[in-house]
């Protein structure tokens, strides 16, 4: 066996077919909402894309070009799309609705078996600050997951602005707020509670910080979140989620939605409403997204934006599709009937069948050859014979 680099995988026909099915289902849904697909280069400059992306530096594949510039294999599609959308190349006015389906690259720290390259399908909705944009992105994500065949999944939605406002209000400075936020980011609720107990705060404030952990469930938690926070930013953030909920109701997707004010997907990238997708049968996150209003500042054209990205490999695992190779019809011919065989194959191909034309002179073991196909037709000598 010739080895591949750590985390790199081959995709064989059966898996390829399954992935294609998912990709087609999702992209047709995304296109039907008016989003346009674009492609960007696999390699980007580290200084522009590597540093702007939400992916940790140690997960980037870096290399040098012949002039000594540091390049990265794109770790996500959001930063490249922001680069394109902010550039003059893209003449469009905001808001812009852009979609992508592309492989992204992330070096793996843990076991070598985890994929370091995987396909992501997603959208970016740029230039609209309203919660209508968030609602559209979340609803589109749900519609495209459903189109791919996913049924049992949950989308927890949170608001990083709420979390930050509550922390600032209670602990007073950003460094201390960051410590609390990091516990949530690391999903370490035990550490969070321990830390809160040790803070020099009134027991009321400590209780408020602990109550944040309870703000998880249905939309009734939004009201509770409003009561918990005093400052205007916090109240506004909760009100935003409330508006979002109403808009999601209008889209008819709230059966998949949960509210979770503890959701912290990233330490600094997201700026407002954010969400994740979890599905039955797969132990890991299927996709996520949210509002990232600061990314475009890095490309000198500030704009609000929101989007989602779905990992095709994880979705595939969740869907548990039968991985079947496509049915192929094999036409085996000998020289005497070459023309008839070609005509026959062409007519079948036009009807959408997948047809192989095989000169019998090129096959060593005819039985082994025919056994590999669902259907065989023989044009040998002067006879024609069909065999299922």
């Amino acid at each position: 066996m010739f080895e591949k680099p750590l985390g790199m995988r081959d995709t064989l026909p059966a898996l390829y077919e399954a992935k294609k099915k998912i990709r087609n289902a999702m992209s047709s849904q995304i296109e039907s909402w008016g989003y346009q697909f674009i492609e960007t280069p696999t390699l980007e400059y580290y200084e522009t894309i590597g540093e702007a992306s939400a992916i940790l530096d140690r997960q980037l594949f870096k290399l040098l070009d012949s002039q000594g510039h540091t390049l990265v294999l794109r770790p996500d599609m959001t930063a490249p799309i922001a680069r394109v959308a902010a550039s003059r190349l893209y003449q469009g006015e905001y808001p812009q609705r852009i979609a992508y389906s592309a492989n992204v690259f992330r070096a793996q720290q843990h076991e070598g078996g985890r994929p370091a390259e995987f396909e992501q399908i997603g959208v970016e909705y740029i230039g609209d600050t309203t919660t209508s944009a968030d609602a559209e992105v979340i609803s589109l994500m749900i519609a495209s997951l459903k189109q791919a065949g996913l049924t049992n999944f949950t989308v927890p939605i949170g608001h990083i602005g709420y979390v930050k406002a509550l922390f600032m209000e209670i602990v007073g400075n950003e460094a201390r707020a960051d410590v609390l936020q990091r516990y949530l980011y690391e999903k370490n609720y035990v550490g969070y509670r321990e830390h809160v107990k040790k803070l020099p705060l009134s027991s009321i404030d400590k209780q408020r910080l602990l109550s944040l952990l309870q703000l998880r469930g249905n939309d009734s938690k939004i009201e509770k979140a409003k009561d918990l926070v005093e400052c205007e930013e916090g109240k506004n953030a909760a009100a935003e989620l409330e508006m979002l909920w109403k808009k999601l109701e209008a889209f008819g997707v709230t059966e998949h939605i949960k509210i979770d004010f503890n959701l912290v997907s990233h330490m600094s990238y997201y700026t407002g409403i954010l969400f994740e997708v979890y599905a039955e049968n797969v132990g890991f996150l299927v996709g996520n997204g949210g509002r990232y209003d600061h990314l475009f500042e890095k490309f000198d054209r500030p704009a609000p934006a929101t989007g989602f990205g779905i990992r095709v490999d994880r979705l595939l695992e969740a869907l548990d599709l039968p991985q079947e190779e496509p049915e192929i019809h094999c036409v085996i011919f000998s020289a005497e009937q070459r023309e008839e065989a070609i005509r026959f194959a062409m007519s079948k191909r036009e009807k959408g069948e997948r047809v192989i034309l095989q000169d019998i002179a090129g096959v060593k073991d005819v039985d082994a050859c025919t056994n590999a196909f669902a259907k065989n037709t023989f044009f040998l000598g002067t006879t024609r014979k069909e065999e299922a």
Partner: protein
Amino acid sequence: MSDKLTIAMPKGRIFEEAAQLLVKAGYNLPPEFEDSRKLIIDVPDEPFRFMLAKPMDVTTYVEHGVADLGIAGKDVMLEEERDVYEVLDLQISKCYLAVAGLPDVKIKGVAPKIATKYPNIASSYFRENGEQVEIIKLNGSIELAPLIGLADRIVDIVSTGRTLKENGLVELEHIADITSRLIVNPVSYRLKDQQIDEIVERLSSVVSQ
């Protein structure tokens, strides 16, 4: 797939303490699992079953979602850094991570050798303290390493200190306190939240704060 939750439990001492805690929380567990060699144990009266794993592997099972919940030592969590929710400190199997070595031995060389079952914890601890060390990973009987000259010091968990004492070692530095934690797979935490919240609540009411 069954509707029952799967709880990954560490084999051995922690299992008994954890099982006692569940009984205290009002769960009706079958009495005979002590001597069973089965790795998957059904709990007919309750909405969960147990799978028994090596303590070091519990976080792995939970991260991959084959177990919804797990009971894992904080030492394992620090070592493995798995993507799981740490929801409750069960306050059982209390111990701590420490650096130990032979008494009155001057460390020689530019990079003292450290033997440990926890290479990640050890290397980040010494890195944070600005010490240059060489880590040697062992799978057990760590105390042996300084006695026969494999390592200058060890990083290991200490509960009573008896093993150290009996082997003539002394504790040199305290790294972190350890207890067992209830951990949850991120997907289960979302999709089976009501079932999981109930277990968390019932357990947290019996855990001594």
